[in-house]
């Protein structure tokens, strides 16, 4: 429908795994990496490969963009959506979406994901954070000593 007007393009996004998504221009406005590519072209349809974003993640990002680009949705409905959106993700999903947001240069989505990740590690122990992010502690004995010195108040 949108393609009938010559000024409006349909944008095809191709994810790293080859899955294809057709979206309207207002959906990709937030993706500055994509938008700048579109701006350089003057065609009714463009097809853009995104080799750093996987299909599952791209589907989620598009879902998020659709919700937030919608003028019919109330602020409360968007907040409710954000809440549920984060709730169904695992930590790995959040990491990949944060990286995707960075690659696609999506400022507000990136801040949103960073905030969601920060909320997970707020008020948590070192062990929890390591486990959650699958980080192994590999402090050298020298580093361990420095850490212990600076953390003295905590080891009293």
């Amino acid at each position, binding site marked *: 429908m949108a393609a009938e007007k010559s000024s409006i393009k349909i944008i095809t996004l191709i994810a*790293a*795994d*080859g*899955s294809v998504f057709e979206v309207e221009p207002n959906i990709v406005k937030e993706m500055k990496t994509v938008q700048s590519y579109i701006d350089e072209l003057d065609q009714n349809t463009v097809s853009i490969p995104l080799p750093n974003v*996987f*299909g*599952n*993640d791209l589907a989620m990002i598009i879902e998020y963009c659709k919700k937030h680009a919608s003028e019919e949705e109330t602020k409360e409905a968007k907040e409710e959506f954000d809440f549920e959106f984060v709730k169904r993700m695992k*930590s*790995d999903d959040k*990491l*990949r979406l*944060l*990286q995707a947001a*960075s690659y696609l240069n999506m400022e507000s989505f*990136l*801040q949103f994901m*960073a*905030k969601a*990740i*920060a909320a997970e*590690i*707020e*008020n*948590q*122990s*070192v062990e929890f*954070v*390591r486990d959650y*992010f*699958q*980080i*192994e*502690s*590999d*402090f*050298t004995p020298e*580093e361990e000593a420095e*850490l212990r010195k*600076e*953390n003295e*108040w*905590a080891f009293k």
Partner: protein
Amino acid sequence: MKSKCESESESKSKPNWLELPIDLTKNILQRLDTIDILTSARNVCPLWWNICKDPLMWRTIRICHIYHIPLIDILCFETLYLSASDICCFEPLCRSAIDLSCGHLEDLDLELLGCDELLEYIAPRAINLHRLRLFYCLKVSNKCLIEFVTKFSLLEKLVITFNDKFPKESFEVINRCCPLLKSLDFVRPTLFYINRDHLVFAIAKAMPGLHHLTFVGIVINNAALVTILDGCSMLQSLDLQLCLCDDLSQSLEKRCLEQIKDFRFPLNHVSDFFDEDNFCDLFNVSSV
């Protein structure tokens, strides 16, 4: 075809948080409460430890919610939770964060903790401070509080909890020493409303350049409100939603709405305030 894509996607996307671009890691860590960064996040791995050594990571120091207790309980049972020894253990942490900031601190936000000695330690190490929030830091003396605030010539936003002996003359001093100050939240720590007109009048007289003004916990009458509107003619927002005004005249209400873009009405009856849901919304705390 699709299942192949999915399995490929899973194998390729095995997470490794250490490979995140540094800026993204910083973005996440900077959102944490300062206590979390000091006691947890920076001890996770050498990379995060080094990230947290960067003074620019300490432009914001925020030590809030140290009790994990709803604020309403703290308000109602103040003395129960504000024992000196509890709070003291956070002060070395605060000093440690101040040291790490190496003078880059722009945003300082302390809740409940802090004493005169701590503020005296911070003042010379925070000359670039833009925003200061001392919320319910009830151990700090008025004299020290005022001396502290007036050290920061770049200050733009100030939130302070004041006690009933707060000297009205200090607003002129603050205004002179902090010429960039545009936003003031003046919070009275109690559930019982008291008229503090002399302070309202003093602010209206001494701080004509304010753009944002919030009062909490006082009774405000028509005369005081008129003084604010006359004195602070540049106000864009005036928040009185945690104040009490039982005689707001219609003409004054109209003037407030016309003159101020974002005007939050005062409560017109004390019982409004004690509605817990309302209270929790206003204070942005969750009701338990």
